[in-house]
């Protein structure tokens, strides 16, 4: 989990363990308007890797790197909003 380099693009997170999509084929897992939720209590937390900011530095965070620790993930609607 070293420091990430800053490029001009805007990187985003991705869910780990997803099957790679062959080029030219559309994703069929999410039918129009339907979002499948796979996170549920008692089940393994879906792994992901995504860019993050911590104390003046950019980094990549991978959830499974924290195995062995308790983790609390807090989603929130957006920066500059109240909590």
């Amino acid at each position, binding site marked *: 989990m070293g420091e990430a380099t800053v490029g001009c693009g805007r990187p985003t*997170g991705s869910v780990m363990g997803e099957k790679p999509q062959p080029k030219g084929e559309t994703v069929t897992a999410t039918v129009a308007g339907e979002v499948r939720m796979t*996170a549920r209590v008692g089940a*393994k*937390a879906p792994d992901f890797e995504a860019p993050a*900011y911590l104390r003046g530095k950019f980094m990549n965070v991978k*959830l499974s790197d924290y195995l062995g*620790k308790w983790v609390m993930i807090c*989603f929130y*609607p957006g920066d500059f909003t109240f909590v």
Partner: protein
Amino acid sequence: MSAVAGKHDEFQKLGVQILSISTDSHFAHKIWEEEELSKMTKDGIPWPMVSDGAGSIGKIYGVYDENGGIDVRGRFLIDPDGIIQSIEILTPPVGRKVAEAIRQVKAFQHVRATKGAEACPAGWEPGLPTLKPGPDLVGKVWKVWKPTE
């Protein structure tokens, strides 16, 4: 986020790693932390602020709002084995109560420490009696535990 930051010492004592996630870029996180949050908290935000720009993490966790393009408020407590023990999801206008998250951490850690031999009844706080599930307890909970406010 600043409310959680105010209790970060307590989360640290409990060995809990916090990750905050929104659909903002990590660049936006940097400016928000530097310009605002650092002034609302003692030491700024001491955990990674994760960017979920495409909402792909929010989707799989069931918190992504496609109309707004945002992740709604959702708190997921994950144990050292990577198992989700607790979920709380709210629509945006109401914030979380951090003390409840801490209470749940303590309760789940207690259950884990006893390898599931003890359970924490409603309203449990450290120091209050736990239940020891087993054949002898069936129909006898009233003897060992009284509902409280």
